[in-house]
Each structure stands twice: as C-alpha cells, then as structure tokens.
C-alpha cells in the first residue's frame, strides 16, 4: 500500500501539483486544529486573560480552571458512567444495527421502504420532546437512573448511523464475492464471517465511533434519566453556557478530550481498510 504514495515525477507541472496538494493538506489540518488551539489557550488561561483584549496567542499555562473541575466531587464516578454508557451504546447499536444494514443491502423484501423510513425518522425527531414519555416509561419499569437504561436511549440515537453506514458498506462489497464463497463450500454464515466481515470491519469502526461520540456528547436524556448515576456531561457540563467564561472553556475542553482520545485509540481499525481494499 505504500506504493499509493503520491508519485511526483521529474517534470515541473507535477512538482507544482504536489506542492499545491501538500499546501492543501496543511491548510485543511490547520482549519481543524486552529479553533481547537484557541480552546486550549483559553482553557489554560487565568480568568483575567480569558476576558482580556487583545487575546494572547500562546497559553500562559494557568491551571486554575482545570483544577476547579478536578476538585469536583464525584467526577471520576461520572466519568466511569459516561464511558460505560458509551461502550454499551457502541456494542448494542452495532450488534442490533449491522444485521439490518446487511438485510437492506442484500435483499429485496416487502416493507423495505417503510423500514428505511422508520430508521431515518428516528434521527429526524428531537429527543427532548420524546424524553417525557420515555422517562415515565423508565420510572415505571425500573430502568430509570441506570446506566443501562440511558444506554438504551443512546442506542436509539446511534442506530440510524449503524444501520445506514453498514448498509452502504455492504452495498459496496460485490455480492459475487459472497457467491464465490458459497460455491467454495461456505454456508451463508461462514461466507459472511470469513469474507464479508473482515472487509467491513473498518466501517464498523466508523459506526462505533459515531455511537461513542453520540453517547458521550448527549446531554438532555442524560440529565433527565440519571440522578445518582450521572454521566460526566450531565453531571458537570450541562450548565456550561451559564458558567463564567473561563470555566466554560475549561469545561468544553474536558468534554472534548476523551472523545479525541477515543478516536485516536480506534483509528487503526479505521485505517486498516486500505490494506484490504488495495488487495
């Protein structure tokens, strides 16, 4: 796969092309990173510096705002809850969603259109409106204030992503590949696990990232459905917008970092795909 490197020939237009290419990559990276760098500066600034004008462009490494959050009681428990909810959401949304994605891509069946619409509807209706009946149902069934109960709601939010992403991935894999495996003696199931599954593993990672991030950043349901078992977002950060500026930024930073670490941790699954696809 290393031969996929941009091959710059000796001739000039190609060199110029490569230069433009690299410049564009750098520019796009900066586009993503610079706003985050500003967040970092404000997080590591004293309250005076956050309110000052003009702003400094180098952080002064004042840890006051972060220390404030570190002193919060129950922070670690909330962090643990957040991770648990996100992990359960990830596993459930994929185990439930991927088979449906496969069915959508491989079969024509009655009610397929309706089914797809149901999936999409889920994402097109705001959760805060649904939270009341859900909360009543949870309180009555004892799911209320449990990590598992909240994960059920977050799974509902993540399922459309899981189904649609796996659907588009399965559609990208020629059915001939599976058929070939069948003729070689595989059952439908083994053909799937031996041939198709490795191919879509990176895509699964993509939907896992979605599931994790959706759950991690979700505030409303977490605030309504958990009391003792609060997630970090609900526990600390739902009132960010009413907090003083320096804490707002530090809180935003705390919210962002774990998600970044997670994406970093799973990126190799995401990137593994070239090895396979480039065969």
């Amino acid at each position: 796969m290393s031969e996929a490197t941009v091959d710059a020939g000796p001739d000039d237009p190609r060199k110029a092309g490569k230069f433009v290419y690299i410049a564009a990559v750098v520019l796009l990276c900066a586009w993503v990173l610079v706003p985050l760098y500003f967040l970092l500066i404000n997080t590591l600034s004293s309250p005076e510096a956050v309110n000052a004008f003009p702003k400094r462009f180098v952080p002064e490494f004042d840890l006051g705002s972060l220390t404030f959050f570190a002193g919060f009681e129950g922070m670690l428990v909330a962090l643990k809850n957040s991770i648990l909810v996100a992990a359960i959401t990830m596993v459930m949304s994929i185990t439930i969603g991927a088979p449906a994605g496969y069915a959508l891509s491989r079969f024509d069946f009655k009610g397929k259109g309706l089914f797809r619409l149901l999936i999409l509807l889920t994402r097109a209706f705001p959760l805060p409106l649904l939270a009341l009946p859900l909360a009543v149902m949870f309180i009555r069934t004892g799911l209320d204030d449990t990590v598992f109960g909240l994960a059920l709601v977050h799974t509902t939010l993540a399922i459309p992503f899981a189904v649609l992403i796996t659907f588009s991935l399965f559609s990208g894999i020629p059915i001939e590949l599976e058929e070939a495996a069948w003729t070689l003696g595989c059952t439908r199931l083994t053909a799937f696990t031996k041939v198709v599954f490795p191919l879509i593993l990176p895509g699964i990672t993509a939907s896992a990232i979605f599931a994790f991030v959706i759950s991690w950043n979700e505030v409303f349901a977490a605030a309504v459905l958990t009391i003792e078992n609060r997630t970090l977002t609900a526990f600390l950060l739902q009132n960010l917008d009413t907090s003083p500026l320096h804490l707002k930024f530090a809180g935003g930073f705390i919210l962002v970092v774990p998600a970044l670490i997670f994406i970093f941790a799973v990126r190799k699954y995401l990137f593994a795909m070239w090895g396979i696809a480039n065969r």
Partner: protein
Amino acid sequence: MRIKAKMAGVASGAALLVAASVAQADVLFWSTQAKPVEEAQSMRENVLAGHGDAVDYQPNDGGPWLTRLNAELQAGDGTIGVLGALHGDFSAMNPDDLVDLSDMGVGSASETFNNLAMLGTDSAQYIPWMQASYIMAANKKALEHLPEGADIDALTYDQLIEWSANVMEATGEAKFGFPAGPKGLKHRFFQGYLYPSYTDGVVRTFASDAAVTAWETFLELWAVTNPGSTNFSFLQEQLLSEEVWIAFDHTSRLANAFNERPDDFVAFPAPAGPTGRGFMPVIAGVGIPRTAPDMEASKALVAYMLSPETQIATLRATNFFPVVDVALPDDLPPAVQAAGGAVAKMSASPDANPGLLPAGLGAKGGDFNRVFVDTFERIVLAGQPIRAVLDDQKVALAEIMNETGAPCWAPDAPSDGACPVE
C-alpha cells in the same frame, strides 16, 4: 476476538451497575437556580453540607428540570425530594402537584412574597427561599462621561441615553449592554422597568400612547447599545471584557464582575421615567412535589433552607438575598455589598415604583413573557412600526389575560376579574 472480550466485559459491567444502583437515602434537591458550576459547587460545599442529612444538589436547565419533574408526577413515583425554582416555574405547575406547606410554620418576612407563594390557593404551595433584583452596573471609566448634573443614584432614562451617547462619542463604540441574548432576561426589563417607569402599568397600559413613548425611548437607548447585545445573556462577561461599560442585568448575573475586580465597577439603581423608578423583585422558592420519596426528610431540608445561617450561606454562594429577617455580616463578598447597596437605594428612592411579578398566569407565564420578547424583536430588531406592533401584540396579551382570568397586579390598578388590556 478482542471485540468479543470487550463485549463480555461491558455486559457484565452493565449488569453489576444495574444491580448496584439501589436507591440511596440522600434527599434530591432539584433546582433551576444556582446553575453555574461555581455556584452549584458552593451550594454543595458551603450551604448544604451543614444540613444533618446528605443532600444531592442537582441544578438543571429548565428543559430537563421540567421534563424529569413531569415524568415523576405522571409516573406517580419519584426521587426528587425538594424543588428549587423561580416563582414563575412554580406558578406554571398544578398546585395539586405540590405538597401543602402551610403547617410548617416557616416563611418569608414579606407578606407579599408569602401570598405569591400560595399560587392563588389559600395555602402555601412553596416557601419563598431567596430574592434578587435587576440593577445597573458601570465600569468606573464611564463615570467621567456622566451628563452634567446627573446623579448616578437617581438617573433618568434620558440621562442614561445621554450618558451612553457620551461614552460612544468618546470611545467610538456603543458601550451600553443589554441582556438581549437567547438566555438573557430582557423581558423582565420591559415588564418590571420600562413599562412601570413610563406607563405606570404593564398589562392595562400595554398599547397606550405612553407605551409608544416608552418604546421610542428604548429605541434611542438601543442606538447607543452595543450591537452585540443580541448575544449577551450574562452582562458580567462583557463588563469584564470591557466590551460594555454600562449594563443592566440580574444581580447574580453581574456578580462575577464585582467579585473579580471590585475596584473597577460601581452598582447603582435602575433609571426613572415619567411615572417613577420601576423595578422588580426576583423570587425563588423551595417546594416539595407530591411524589417526594421521604416527606419528612424533604420538609426538614426546606426548613433548613429558611434558617438564618443557611440564608446567609446561600447569599454568599448564589448572590441571592435572604427572604427572612436576618442581620447581614460585614464580610460579604464585594458583589453582594454592591448589589445590596444598589437595591436598597432603588427601593428607598422617593420615586420608586415597584412592579410585582406576574401572578395568576399559571402555565401561560411563558406566553406572557413571549409577548414582550416578540414586541422587542419586532420593534427593535425587525424595525417594524411601534403602533402597529403594539396593536397586534395587544391581541395576544388580551387573550392570555382572558384565558387565565388573572387580575391586575401592581403597578396596574386593581381589576375585577381578568386584567383588561386597554
């Protein structure tokens, strides 16, 4: 394989957690107040830590607060022990959902507040907990631009406009700040300050000629107002960043400015108009939902919140003032001293024209606020003609009053039955 192992781990973890989440005995204090993280932390550490029983203090935005509360009421089974909220939040509730607290023998020193807390019934549905108001604050740099002969403690709206115009001329920037952001409390300015000061009423005089003058004056003020005001919800931020030198806001939303740089800012009363110096109190209360799991513990917490020591600790934590008679210590934070002084001057001024909080509107409180916000947005932001907008919004207002049958409240003259829009 690894994924499988992970799955197993997660699943067993989930099972453990589900099993471990047995109800704890802490009283859950479900509040819309003291939300900013610092205030919440201070409530936990400095106010509620002194209560004998463990209290779980959970401040929330209005949305989750209400959704959770309604869900518990609907399910008939709850974890919330005590509610902390503004008068308006309580008045939007069905009084039957709140436990009658008359027999507790605690209450505010103010009969007016205690009456408001009955929510139109004849018993206490919640207990007044703390109070605040809206005041003005200014950067000391602005003081040299005060119009000649103006007394900062007895300003008029015209002087405020002139002052802001002077500042604008001197600095080249509009430096009056108004909380017109999405979470800003602009509607209270119109209901409690502008209307009483110009029309000596709120509902009756909504579309009067005096109201047209009031809005014309406001437009003049808006011309010298920082145009970023539509993003401002907590003026302390803009005071500290000096985007704004003169500001109107809730006392607790100005507090950080005074606490961080006490020597740089002054607090002073709201300005006066032709019909006096309108101003409005803010009341927060504590109540108990009928689904509270442990009624005795909840009542004990309510009683604790009203004790003089707790009230002073609450003042330090939230910048909301006590509602019971209590001698204030001398070592209060700068914000409290500044705000306390301004409020005292405001209510003691000879032309004081206090407005009360809207009463009897029930669930229509939000619609009532919306009438004023809509009027503001249409006249000021969309530039529509004042007379036409007032005549149009008047219909919506009259509908709310008729539907709820709410009688007039001060400064409107009393009415028989629903307060009429004249």
